[in-house]
């Protein structure tokens, strides 16, 4: 599969994501934040983690308004799979492609740890690393109710009060299911020596 990997100044998980895709047999290509591309050029797109534009203004706020995101948005509307990991999730929320927003963790700390996760749609349980300071998922109570009613919550932290996210939400998807975002890092856990293989073929 031809997959675009978006890079912003401050992205730092791009090479991990690239290798993760290569090892799964895909053909990734880097996309720079100033690029525009034809939505037909790629079959899928990943927005990796990091600290795009130094988290200035708000995490993901500046990246969400960059040129490349206009093309990503067109791709999303055409139904192609888009995955946002960590800062990528924050960017997708800021760009309005996913509902809600990621705010500073409840205790104000940067969480660098493993997280046990559960997919409420199929009760699948996995374990992935997390590394974030702004991972507290927030949305209005109406929106959260809608997310549950429409089966858009796809990952929850198993531990209560992990980072203060509403309903322990770690990942959500759009109504059609093709745009997904999550705070944990599947690309950091897909080989035995990484401590978990749960990130293998995570999203397709």
């Amino acid at each position: 599969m031809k997959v675009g990997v978006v890079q912003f100044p401050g992205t730092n998980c791009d090479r991990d994501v690239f290798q993760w895709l290569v090892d799964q047999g895909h053909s990734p290509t880097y996309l720079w934040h100033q690029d525009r591309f034809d939505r037909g050029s790629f079959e899928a797109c990943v927005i990796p983690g990091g600290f795009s534009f130094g988290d200035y203004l708000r995490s993901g706020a500046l990246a969400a308004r960059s040129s490349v995101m206009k093309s990503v948005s067109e791709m999303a509307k055409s139904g192609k799979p888009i995955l946002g990991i960590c800062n990528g999730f924050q960017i997708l929320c800021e760009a309005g492609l996913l509902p809600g927003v990621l705010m500073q963790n409840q205790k104000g700390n940067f969480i660098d740890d493993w997280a046990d996760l559960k997919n409420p749609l199929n009760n699948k349980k996995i374990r992935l690393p997390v590394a974030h300071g702004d991972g507290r998922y927030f949305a209005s109570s109406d929106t959260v109710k809608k997310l549950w009613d429409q089966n858009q919550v796809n990952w929850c932290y198993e531990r209560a009060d992990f980072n203060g996210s509403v309903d322990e939400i770690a990942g959500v998807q759009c109504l059609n299911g093709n745009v997904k975002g999550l705070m944990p890092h599947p690309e950091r856990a897909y080989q035995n020596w990484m401590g978990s293989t749960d990130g293998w073929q995570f999203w397709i």
Partner: protein
Amino acid sequence: MKKYFVRILPKDEVLDVQGRAVLQMLKSQKHPVASIRVGKLIEVVLNENVSQAQEVLKKITAEGLYNPLVEVAEVEGL
């Protein structure tokens, strides 16, 4: 040329982690403070006349200076 300020604060119903930390620190020093909210102040310099400036400020604020889900924004200087 005139200076304007966009004042951004977290909504009252949203947990303000920074504000809470600052409040706790001040309280630990026995200052009589009831509440602290930490926000942002953005300085914008414009050449336009006031009505044009109002338009520009409204637009740039709505297009991303604040996130209406969790913040409130107010323009000062108009």
